[in-house]
C-alpha cells in the first residue's frame, strides 16, 4: 500500500547547538491513525511542520503521498494548528474559516462556486457545526473551534489530517467527541496524524504510536511501543512509570497522571 507520509533520516535544526530532530525515519501508511507523543520540546511540532514543509529540512527527506512537499502535495494535507497560534478575536465566522479551506484551489479573482459552498457545508455538517456557521469564531467553545478548524481541513479535500495538540485546553467530553470524529474520518479513508499528551487516548483509539524525543524512540502499534522501558526512554526523568494493580500508570512531570 502506498504510504501517506514517508520520512527518511530527517534532521531539523533551528540553531547549531541542538537539533530539534535528528535521524527520524518512519512511514505512515494511508488510512492510518497515528498519535505522536513525547515530552515538550521533543520535536512533535517540528515533525508536523516538516511534513507541512514549513521548516527548512537540514538533511533527509519528507514525502507526502509519494511526492516531495510541493504546493500540490500541500493541498492534500489539512493542518489544524495549536490553539495558541490563532487570534480568536479575528472578525470571521465559522463559515468564513471553513471557506478558507477552499482558497488554495480557488485561484485568484475567483468567487466561491457552488461546489466550494457545498464542500464547506458538508464539512460543517460532518463535524457537527452546521448550526454555528454564522457564529464569530471567538464565540465558540474550545472544542467547537477545533471542530471548525477540522472542517476547514476537510473542505480543503485533504487526505491527510495533521492536528497539533487538538485537545489541549478542551474539556473532557469535547476531547472524546473530537477523537470519535477523527476515528470516523479515518473510517472514511483519511490518514490522521495527531500530536498529544494524552497517552491513554492513543492507546485506546489509535492504531499507530510514535514516541519522539529529538529522535524516533519507537514507532509501531501502541501496545508494542507503550512499554515501560520505551516510555522511560522517551520521557526520561519527565515521566515516572508506576505499576498499580496490573495497570501501568504514567505520571508526567507537572502532575498529570494518565493510565496506560
Amino acid at each position: 500500500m502506498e504510504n501517506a507520509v514517508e520520512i527518511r533520516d530527517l534532521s531539523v535544526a533551528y540553531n547549531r547547538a541542538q537539533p530539534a530532530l535528528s535521524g527520524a525515519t518512519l512511514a505512515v501508511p494511508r488510512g492510518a491513525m497515528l498519535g505522536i507523543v513525547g515530552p515538550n520540546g521533543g520535536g512533535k511540532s517540528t515533525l508536523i511542520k516538516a511534513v507541512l514543509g514549513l521548516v527548512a529540512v537540514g538533511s533527509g527527506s519528507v514525502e507526502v503521498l509519494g511526492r516531495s512537499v510541493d504546493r500540490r502535495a500541500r493541498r492534500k494535507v489539512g493542518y489544524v494548528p495549536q490553539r495558541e497560534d490563532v487570534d480568536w478575536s479575528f472578525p470571521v465566522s465559522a463559515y468564513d474559516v471553513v471557506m478558507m479551506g477552499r482558497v488554495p484551489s480557488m485561484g485568484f479573482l475567483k468567487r466561491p462556486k457552488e461546489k466550494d459552498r457545498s464542500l464547506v457545508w458538508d464539512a460543517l455538517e460532518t463535524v457537527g457545526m452546521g448550526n454555528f456557521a454564522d457564529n464569530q469564531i471567538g464565540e465558540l467553545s474550545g472544542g467547537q473551534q477545533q471542530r471548525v478548524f477540522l472542517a476547514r481541513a476537510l473542505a480543503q479535500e485533504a487526505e491527510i489530517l495533521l492536528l497539533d495538540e487538538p485537545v489541549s485546553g478542551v474539556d473532557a467530553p469535547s476531547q472524546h467527541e473530537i477523537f470519535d470524529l477523527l476515528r470516523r474520518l479515518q473510517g472514511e479513508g483519511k490518514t490522521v496524524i495527531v500530536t498529544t499528551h494524552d497517552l491513554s487516548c492513543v492507546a485506546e483509539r489509535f492504531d499507530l504510536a510514535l514516541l519522539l524525543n529529538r529522535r524516533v524512540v519507537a514507532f509501531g502499534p501502541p501496545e508494542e511501543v507503550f512499554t515501560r522501558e520505551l516510555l522511560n526512554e522517551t520521557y526520561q526523568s519527565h515521566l515516572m512509570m508506576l505499576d498499580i494493580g496490573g495497570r501501568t500508570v504514567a505520571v508526567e512531570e507537572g502532575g498529570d497522571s494518565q493510565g496506560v
Partner: protein
Amino acid sequence: MFEYLLEPLSFEFMQRGLLASVLVAVICGVLGSFVVLKGLAFIGDGLAHASFGGVALAFVLGANIYLGAFVVAIGTALGIGAISQHGRVSSDTAIGVFFSGTFALGILIISRVESYTTDLFGYLFGDVLSITTGDLWTIGILGLVVLALVGAFYRQLLFVAFDPTVAAASGIPARAFEYLLLVLLGATIVTAIQAVGIILVVALLVTPAATANLLTRRFHHMILVGAAIGSFSALLGIYLSYYLDVASGAAIILVATAIFLSVFAASSLRERFKSPGKPAQSEIG
C-alpha cells in the same frame, strides 16, 4: 441646512480637498482593517516617517518626491519584513531601527540644503487644501490599484491575515501576500500623507478601522464600516474646519477619534449589561 452644506463647495479647492480626503479615507479604511487586526500600526508609523527620508533624497536628486517617498517606504517595508523573518531581531526592533534611520537620513539631508527646508517640511505636514487636480489623479489611481488588488486577493489576504501558518501549509504563498500587504501599506501611506501629513496618517489608517472592529463581526463588514467611518470623518472634519476655522487635517482625525471613543464607550456599557448572562469568550475552553 442645505446652504451650509453647499457653501464650502463653491470653492474648487474645497471640492478637491473633500474628494481627496474621502478617497484617502476609503483606502485607509480598507487597509486599516488589516493594520488593526495584524497589529501593524507601528509599521505604519514607521513607514510614514521613513518616507520622509525618501522625500529628502528625491529632492536632492531632483526626482519626483512622491516617487522617492514611495520607493523608500516600500524598501523599508520589505527590509523590515526580511529582517524580522530572519528571526534574530524582533519586528518591532527592526521597525525602530529602520524608520529612525531613514527619518534621520531625511533630516541629515535637509540640514545640508537649508533653503529647501520649508518645502520638505510642508510635505511632512501635508495639506488637504493644496491638493491639485494632478494629486487627485494620483490618489484616485492609487486607490483603484489598492482596492483592485485587495479585491482580487481578498480571500488569500484574509486567510493569510487570520492564520498565516495554515495558509502557508495549505499551499498559499503566505510570505508573498504579507509583502504585498506591506507594499500596499507603503503606497497608501505615501498617498495619504498628502492629505493629512506624516504625523496624522497613522490615525487615519488605524482609528476608523479600530472603530469598525468594535462594531462588526465579519471581516468584509469591518472593511466597509471602516471605510464609511473614515469617509464620514473626512467630510465632517473638512466642514468643521471650514465653519470653525480650524486646521483641516487635525479636524478630520479628531472627528474619527471622537467616533471611536463614543463607540468604545457604548460597547463597553453593552458588555457590562450583558456580562452576567454569558461568560467572556476567553474563559471558554
